[in-house]
């Protein structure tokens, strides 16, 4: 069988023709040209991707960065005892029921004594956010002794004044085409000349919930909602999918049933997320009656989405562990479980963590699935537990993008920036974890 002799192909006349490689210059030139073209395509592709990414990032940053600064008006507010303390007993209940908006409004009117008409006075009042009195109330609650005195406060400006201060309202268009009137612009210029227009870092943007008023709307609620949702999703999907992957890869017999399961898991990864949302709506809300719009339900739906991703990544990571390590462990008498837990799993860990983080990052940017289970509502309160109604970052961005007020444009972009920062942090964590584990092993 092994004695077959290779004789080579015989030509017609019985003499084998000697063939040599074609080393002609034209052929070699064409080969190099093809190689250069091939590289050029790659560079073009990368250049295009970088350009698009840069364009997106620059647009978002240009539009959104101003949202991290909030315009305030510095006013000398006379804290009138009768207005802020209607009961007159300095109790907290009484102080909380005071009309702080009125004292702030009076302070602003005091700067413009010549404004008398009802319409004009209202136009002037439009400079103030309807939450402008909050800062005064907080200070009075902390220290009731300032009642009756005049204090300087930096009160929250309305979105119109905010936009004007940030130069987002063009002054050269006809008066009817812009939200602020000529007279308001004149007042604004006077306030600015007096140095009463200040700009402070917008910490409220990260701590407060949504609002109808752009200057009061914050991402805090959505960030907390996203956090609770993602934590639920990780806690559910990571153990389940790692256990499923280990069983399928290491223990399950290779037969029709496991083949079918494998095909279905791969299909599951490609199912549109809105289908998972519908499933959550029908089963979790409809059948089990779980609370609508709660991070718990959102986390369950998103864990369904991340399950196949993590299972596939884990199986790939397990498969990539060299068989020599398994053999070595079997060779010293380790049982199957010991081989998997002591040797294969630790070596597969970086791959598993990378898959889990990337799957989770994808889930974090997911909106369609959570829309279906009611996480799209207008929610002012920051959620405190996984059963409170809540929304998530991508849905909040979607809601703001839909809002007509001009002030929401910059908030939308700022929201996108916050979410991108989260995604970059998570992906960086994936890289760091992978490096750290790889170095150890």
């Amino acid at each position: 069988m092994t004695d077959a002799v290779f004789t080579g192909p015989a030509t017609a006349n019985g003499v084998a023709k000697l063939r040599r490689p074609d080393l002609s210059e034209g052929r070699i030139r064409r080969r190099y040209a093809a190689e250069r073209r091939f590289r050029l395509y790659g560079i073009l592709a990368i250049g295009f991707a970088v350009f698009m990414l840069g364009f997106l990032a620059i647009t978002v940053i240009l539009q959104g960065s101003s949202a991290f600064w909030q315009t305030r008006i510095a006013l000398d507010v006379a804290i009138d005892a009768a207005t802020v303390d209607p009961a007159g007993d300095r109790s907290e209940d009484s102080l909380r029921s005071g009309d702080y908006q009125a004292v702030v409004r009076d302070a602003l009117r005091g700067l413009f004594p010549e404004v008398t008409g009802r319409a004009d006075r209202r136009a002037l009042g439009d400079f103030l956010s309807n939450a402008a009195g909050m800062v005064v109330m907080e200070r009075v609650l902390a220290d009731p002794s300032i009642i009756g005195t005049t204090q300087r406060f930096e009160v929250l400006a309305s979105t119109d004044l905010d936009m004007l201060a940030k130069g987002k309202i063009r002054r050269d268009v006809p008066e009817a085409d812009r939200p602020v009137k000529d007279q308001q612009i004149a007042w604004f210029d006077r306030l600015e000349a007096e140095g009463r227009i200040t700009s402070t870092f917008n910490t409220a943007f990260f701590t407060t919930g949504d609002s109808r008023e752009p200057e009061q709307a914050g991402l805090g609620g959505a960030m907390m909602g996203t956090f609770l949702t993602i934590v639920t999703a990780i806690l559910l999907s990571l153990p389940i999918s790692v256990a499923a992957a280990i069983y399928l890869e290491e223990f399950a017999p290779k037969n029709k049933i496991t083949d079918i399961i494998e095909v279905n898991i791969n299909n599951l990864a490609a199912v549109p997320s809105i289908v998972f949302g519908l499933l959550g709506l029908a089963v979790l809300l409809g059948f089990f009656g779980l609370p609508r719009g709660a991070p718990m339900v959102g986390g369950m739906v998103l864990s369904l989405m991340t399950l196949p991703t993590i299972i596939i990544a884990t199986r790939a990571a397990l498969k990539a562990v060299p068989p020599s390590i398994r053999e070595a462990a079997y060779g010293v008498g380790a049982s199957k479980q010991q081989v998997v837990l002591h040797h294969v799993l630790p070596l597969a860990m970086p791959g598993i963590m990378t898959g889990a983080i990337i799957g989770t990052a994808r889930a974090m940017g997911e909106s369609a699935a959570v829309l279906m289970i009611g996480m799209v509502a207008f929610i002012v309160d920051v959620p405190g537990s996984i059963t409170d109604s809540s929304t998530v970052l991508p849905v909040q961005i979607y809601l703001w993008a839909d809002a007509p007020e001009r002030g929401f444009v910059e908030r939308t972009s700022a929201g996108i920036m916050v979410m991108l920062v989260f995604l970059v942090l998570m992906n960086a964590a994936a890289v760091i974890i992978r490096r750290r584990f790889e170095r150890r092993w």
Partner: protein
Amino acid sequence: MDMGTLPAGAAMSPAVASRAIEGAKMTSRKVCVHYGQKQALFDVDLDIPSRQVTALIGPSGCGKSTYLRCLNRMNDVIDGCRVTGDIRLDGENIYDPKLDVVMLRARIGMVFQKPNPFPKSIYDNIAYGPRIHGMAAGKTEMDEIVQLSLERAGLWNEVKDRLAQPGTGLSGGQQQRLCIARAIAVSPEVILMDEPCSALDPIATAKIEELMDELRENYTIIIVTHSMQQAARVSQKTAFFHLGYLVEWGDTEQIFTSPRDERTQGYITGRFG
């Protein structure tokens, strides 16, 4: 490949069986291995004498590694691999369903072709086996086992100052001796070596061969090798495999000086293989 059409291999078997060794450490009778539909080993009858080195030689794909992996049931972990026949260790059938394969592998250690230390410290590489088998009661006992195993593998002096460093940082020859030490650590009775020197340079090879000679006092060693010189140097018994058949086996000296079968003659003189 059909069994009926095959020549002399099957006819050799009775002759082989007639020279069976009394009190052999391991015996195999009519061992056949199939990978799926393909038969890789045909009716192998072979006795392994205790405390000697038995070399398995033959051209690539002849089934010698497959046979070796039958002896500690390493073929169990390969999908579609089927072993029939009778293999006994001290008279006990190792394919008995009641036998615990994990305990079997603790009795029959294995060293692989490519050095495959665990990606752990040198110490943990050795200590892993004793630990999972509960062989040491405490840290001092474990230290003893580790030191003894490394000493027997001739590696102690080279690594005693860096036991905490990863085993993968050693040279190829050191890694292979580490793997031998790891196998010794669980006190096996038999050590299987699957071409242990094929990835090593001549100096490292010489060290391993020297080591085998020392280990043979306490262990039964079976080595698969492609190098006939190595087989001649280290082994007392040699078995020649060809195309899945055990063609001939006997004392190493006899095999290399006066082989009975012309295929053996052809292989050891380098005419084929």
